């Protein structure tokens, strides 16, 4: 059965370009308009139509004009609700998709930024796979909807096709539109679980880089932005330029120089997983790291942004 539906869908996409036109990825912002909004009655809408027909037939048969008028009124209101459903989607736009950090295998929280047109958009559902979120957008307002995107592999993952639909206002009509943002999200590699620590080259121990500390290591020329209280006024008096005291201190955490080439014995994916684990461990204790990859050479650094930079580089590896 499902296979038949799939085949039918493929056939429909081939035969009905209007339905498939927006199945190609497109740039943001995506604006919904009349050429891409489709409407069919819901099951309840079909049942309600049958009810209206019964009422119409009864009113005509009993030549009851008051009942006929009521039926006409209800029928007209039903038709008008179709326009309201259309209007609810019309002019809605997806302006941005923000990704969050996620490692492969774990869902990534996507933030979809919708902005409204001239009027309010009530009761819109965004559907991705089996996830449905309902939201409303004010006229010229902005609403951020969060969805969980399942991930499997590291690297660039294109966004799936999203369905925007609404049953507004009476639940009689199903109006929908497909959007396919041409945007990919970067999924970080999954770190391996357990394993050896990086083997540090012995000579690196001696070249311990000193960092800002309390002992004056040297004097150097003033650079814009140096704090005033670091200026060595006595020494400066004897020179043409201002001199600044350079403080250094031994780093508490020894640094890790991670290198792709050190792990030649492993398969590429295993290497990436190990590097990811090391990066993670270093990040937890605030250890400075540098990373050498065939594609990129990242200098020493620490902190969240450095970690994200390294993970991004790992994720982007071929």
């Amino acid at each position, binding site marked *: 059965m499902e296979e038949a*539906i799939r085949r039918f869908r493929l056939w429909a996409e081939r035969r009905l370009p209007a339905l498939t036109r927006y199945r190609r990825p497109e740039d943001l912002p995506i604006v919904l308009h009349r050429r891409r909004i489709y409407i069919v009655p819901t099951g309840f809408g079909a049942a309600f139509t049958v009810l209206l027909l019964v009422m119409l037939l009864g009113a005509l048969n*009993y030549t009851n004009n008051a009942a006929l008028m009521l039926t006409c009124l209800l029928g007209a209101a039903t038709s008008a609700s179709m326009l309201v459903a259309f209007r609810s989607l019309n002019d809605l736009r997806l302006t941005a998709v923000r990704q969050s950090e996620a490692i492969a295998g774990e869902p990534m929280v996507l933030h979809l930024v919708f902005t409204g047109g001239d009027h309010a958009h009530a009761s819109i*559902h965004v559907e991705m796979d089996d996830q449905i979120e309902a939201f409303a957008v004010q006229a010229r307002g902005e609403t951020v909807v969060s969805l969980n995107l399942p991930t499997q592999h590291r690297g660039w993952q294109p966004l799936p096709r999203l369905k925007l639909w609404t049953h507004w206002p*009476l639940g009689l009509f199903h109006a929908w539109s497909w959007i396919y943002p041409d945007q990919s999200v970067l999924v970080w590699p999954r770190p391996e679980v357990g394993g050896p620590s990086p083997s540090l080259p012995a000579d690196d121990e001696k070249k311990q880089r000193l960092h800002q500390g309390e002992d004056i290591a040297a004097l150097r020329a003033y650079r814009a932005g140096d704090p005033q209280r670091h200026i060595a006024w006595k020494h400066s008096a004897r020179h043409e330029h201002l001199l600044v005291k350079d403080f250094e201190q031994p780093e508490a955490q020894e640094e890790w120089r991670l290198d792709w080439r050190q792990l030649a014995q492993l398969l590429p994916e295993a290497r990436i997983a190990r590097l990811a684990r090391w990066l993670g461990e270093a990040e937890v204790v605030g250890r400075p790291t540098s990373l050498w990859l065939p594609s990129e050479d990242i200098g020493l650094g620490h902190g969240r942004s450095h970690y994200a930079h390294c993970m991004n580089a790992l994720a982007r590896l071929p």
Partner: protein
Amino acid sequence: MKRWRLFRRARQQPLERRPFDLLSLTILVVLGVHAPHLPVWLSLGLALLLGMRWLQRHRLGGRAPAYLKLPLIALLAAAVISHYGTLFGREPGSALAIGLLVLKLFETESPRDARVGAAFACFVLMAALLFDQGMVETILVAFGLLPALATLRALQPARPQTSLPRELLPALGLLLISLPLALVAFVFVPRLSSPLWGTNGNTQARTGLSPDMSPGDFFDLLTDDRPAMRVTFEGTPPPNTQRYFRAYVLSNYDGRTWNRGDADGSPAVVAHGPAIRYTVVLEANGQRVLPALDVPLEAPREGHLGPDREVRADRPVNDPLVYTLSSAPRYQLQGQLDARARQRDLQLPADFDPRAHALGRRWRQQFGDDDQAIAQAALKLFHDGGFSYTLSPAPLGHNAVDEFLFGTHEGFCEHYASSFTVLMRAAGIPARVVTGYQGGYWNDIASYLLVRQADAHAWSEIWLAGRGWVRVDPTAAVRPERVSQGAAATNAATSADWAPTQWWLGWRNRWDIVNQWWNQGVIGFDTLRQHGLLTPFGVHDASEGLLALLLAIGASLSAALGLLWAMWKRPDADQARTAMQLLEKRLAAAGVARRHSEGPQHFFSRAARALPSHRDTLEHLMRTYLELRYAHDEPPADLLKNFRRAARDFRPRRVVK
């Protein structure tokens, strides 16, 4: 593989409080519009159940206990059967439907239940109109749609949150914008020329004229203020004293009751003077008679003439009916009376009213062959004999006419008409009783005559050689203002306990215009009127196909208007951007599409390279645009105008590749 479905089955969440409240309100309204025809105990019982369920869900939450449902349904069916005797038919059917609707609320716990409940409520609302199609009722029922639509709306997630009364406003808006389409559909939906299934008359008892009459019967009628019919005349209306609307002609008398007998045959011949043409909108009364001004010349389309020129309807009047007739106020009806008819109109039951019979015979001896003198003598008796007009006469016994004539001396039109006819027959003059309406309220604003049930009247007709049947109204001899001013004047004077002010009467009579308009324009809009709709445009009989076509055109026009509304966008306030978008569109058509994140300068340069023939124009456009955008805080108006004109006039030719 991803499952792909056209209709996604919404996950069933528990019903929120707001839609439940709205659904309860809907059902309460449905109960309210049906209450007039439901037995009071059933209405109250259902309202009580509704209230209990509402409280139960709010206080305790959750479903009503399941063991309640089946007994309640059985109880409902038993109640309906015990009151109506059956489950089928209009009244029991609607009572059952309302009961089921209330019970539906007991198991309403999901949006789907609420949806079904709201749809069913719409249906039951419409059923209320089968009982009464009046304008006020119709409008009430239409307002009943508001909570039903609001319920459906409240089921949608992520909707704007408002208070409960404000939830009804969008539904009202929806109904208002759909009104034009509804009217178009109402006017052009082809009507059925004959019903598809039996529409047997309702058995509901309605007050109104009945086909037989015994003195005292009219009491209910004479105190009933509901409209009986409304009449519009072509030309000047007849004066009050000529507004006798004949309904039943009663010839058979059994000493107590007058009835029509089983007379059938061709209508009596009539010679007549100038005719009056008029249209009657008759309220539903369940009877098979169409009251007609004295005396009708031909039968309307909806009925036929009886032998005494009374108009009989082909079908019981269960819905308001519009018919057009001609009548002649001056006429000679049935110049020759054959022996059989004469005998029928002279018969009197032997063992009743000996004194009245004797009086009749005495008059005959006294006046000889002068029938008219005998009638005058009878009227003189009523006028001078101490008779009075009252709506609450003393009860009469076996010899009703004798007791009235020689005893109580008080009564209303029925007593006088009945006694007069008995006296005439006793004197050997063919006579009969006619019931119908007399008088009415002339509405100046809309120029129509409003006849109420209280205008019901009974009079006599006597047959005089050479003049045929002559109308004689003995009540007029007792109380002339009954005929000249109408029933309201007489009755108000008679029943002191209920004397409405003149102001109230006038206001009520004026308000009746609306009902007249509604009955004529809406209720009376039948197949014939529909087909004659296009007469002003030269189409005298619009066919079903033409009507369907017009309906389609009307619906398309409404759809186009609706689409305009749905797709209308506020024009962009930034005129320079609008002009630039126009340029981009034209250049894209010429093969130079602006790239994503391409600056205007780069874009124009690229366009100029691609379209060398337009180089100068494009460079001018680029300079103007850049100046417009970046040189001023507030760009000068002429520069903007300049740019817009240049953009409008720029029509690049396509690049030849």
